[in-house]
């Protein structure tokens, strides 16, 4: 018993959470009003759109098609790839690195990676050309020793170079609590109110395998909902993306993590393109890192041999095979 009079029980209503139907209806009304006002003011736009079978509300899908066609024909309207052409091929960078490692002090691979990415990448994020992506694939394989691919089995994200934002922990099974997600600063982000795009990771605590625990710990979020063929190639795409391993590289400091795609988002109007779990963000940039530029490539790992988590490439040094190349 709360001890309140019947006329005061309204105070118990949770005013921080609005029911879904209420929110949807509010947004639908707002949407209709906005649309009506726009076309009342500018009826010629409606006519223009209709003649081209275009819907302003679906303009993102149209944009995806335009950009997709541009990428296919190699005629992307972005800045030229002069930076890539003027750089030495990745194996020469590695050779230089290997030679330097014989002298004292050796150049840290991370510095080389950051330096090279700075030369290759534009200051502002944008979709990369195939040529740029190919160069980065070879760079990652050489320095990070992770077989990373911008296009894997014909699949490609809308962009491989974008902004990542901090996400909350995901509920792994019914009844999961934040305290069960570890300890320390990674708990500060809290738990997402809803589930990830693929629901619970396991049906119960006892069904949660160590592998699934790692999957949530190192989860990544990508904008599958904006893929141009997302709605037409189901359920294939949903299955293909589920827990798909991705290499995430902070382009400013070279910190790298192998994550697993476990949610869809963020919304396009958040100004971000990807999301990372508290652990992913902590490794990429530390406790105060909430948003930053990253590269995200698929990990080509058919044998499931690449572990999830931080890529500690400074500690392991360079592959022996490069000694032969040098």
């Amino acid at each position, binding site marked *: 018993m709360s001890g309140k009079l019947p006329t005061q029980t309204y105070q118990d209503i949770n*005013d*921080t*959470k*609005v*029911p*879904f139907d*209420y*929110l*949807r209806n*509010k*947004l*639908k009304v*707002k*949407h209709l009003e*906005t*649309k009506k*006002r*726009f076309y009342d*003011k*500018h009826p*010629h*736009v409606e006519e*223009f759109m209709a003649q*081209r079978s*275009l819907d*302003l*509300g679906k*303009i*993102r*899908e*149209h*944009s*995806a098609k*335009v*950009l*997709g066609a541009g*990428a296919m024909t190699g005629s992307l*309207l972005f800045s030229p790839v002069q930076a890539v052409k003027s750089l030495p091929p990745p194996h020469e960078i590695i050779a230089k690195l290997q030679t330097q490692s014989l002298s004292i002090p050796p150049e840290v691979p991370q510095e080389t990676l950051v330096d090279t990415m700075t030369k290759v990448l534009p200051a502002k994020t944008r*979709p990369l050309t195939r040529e740029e992506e190919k160069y980065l694939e070879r760079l990652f394989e050489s320095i990070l020793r992770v077989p990373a691919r911008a296009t894997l089995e014909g699949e490609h994200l*809308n*962009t491989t170079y974008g902004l990542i934002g901090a996400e909350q922990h995901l509920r792994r099974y019914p009844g999961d609590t934040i305290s069960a997600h570890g300890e320390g600063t990674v708990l500060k982000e809290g738990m*997402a*109110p*809803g*589930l*990830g*795009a693929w629901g619970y990771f396991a049906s119960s605590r006892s069904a949660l395998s160590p592998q699934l625990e790692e999957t949530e710990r190192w989860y990544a979020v990508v*904008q599958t*909902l*904006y893929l*141009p063929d997302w709605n037409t190639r189901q359920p294939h795409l949903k299955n293909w993306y589920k827990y798909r391993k991705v290499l995430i590289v902070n382009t400013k400091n070279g910190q790298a993590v192998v994550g697993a795609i476990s*949610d*869809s*988002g*963020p*919304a*396009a*109007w*958040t*100004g971000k393109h990807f999301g990372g779990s508290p652990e992913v963000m902590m490794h990429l940039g530390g406790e105060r890192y909430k948003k930053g530029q990253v590269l995200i490539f698929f990990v080509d790992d058919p044998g499931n041999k690449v572990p999830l988590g931080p890529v500690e490439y400074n500690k392991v040094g360079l592959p022996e095979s490069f000694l032969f190349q040098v």
Partner: protein
Amino acid sequence: MSKLFYDHLIVLTQVEAEIKKTAETPEEKEELWKLVDEIIHHRVMEKVLDKLPRAHHEDFLTRFHEAPHDESLIGYLTQQVGENVEELIRREIGELAYELIKELRRK
């Protein structure tokens, strides 16, 4: 790639937080995201076309149709309108964010 020429001007963090609190499934979340997205497109285009002289509408719409991602459209609009269009869009998004938050938060 899903990109529009004014994407970099849109940051609706609080609206996102409200939606995250409410949506219990990914489908619910995406439905609400798309509604907000569509409201934004109509509001931005309304603001732009209100300011742009009628004689340039057809030209702008054609350019937009051909390359909705092209950020140089901002430069084109600024030239035709004679005002800082980036700032106009930013302000419009700010007003929309205020309206949405006011409506979405139950008193």
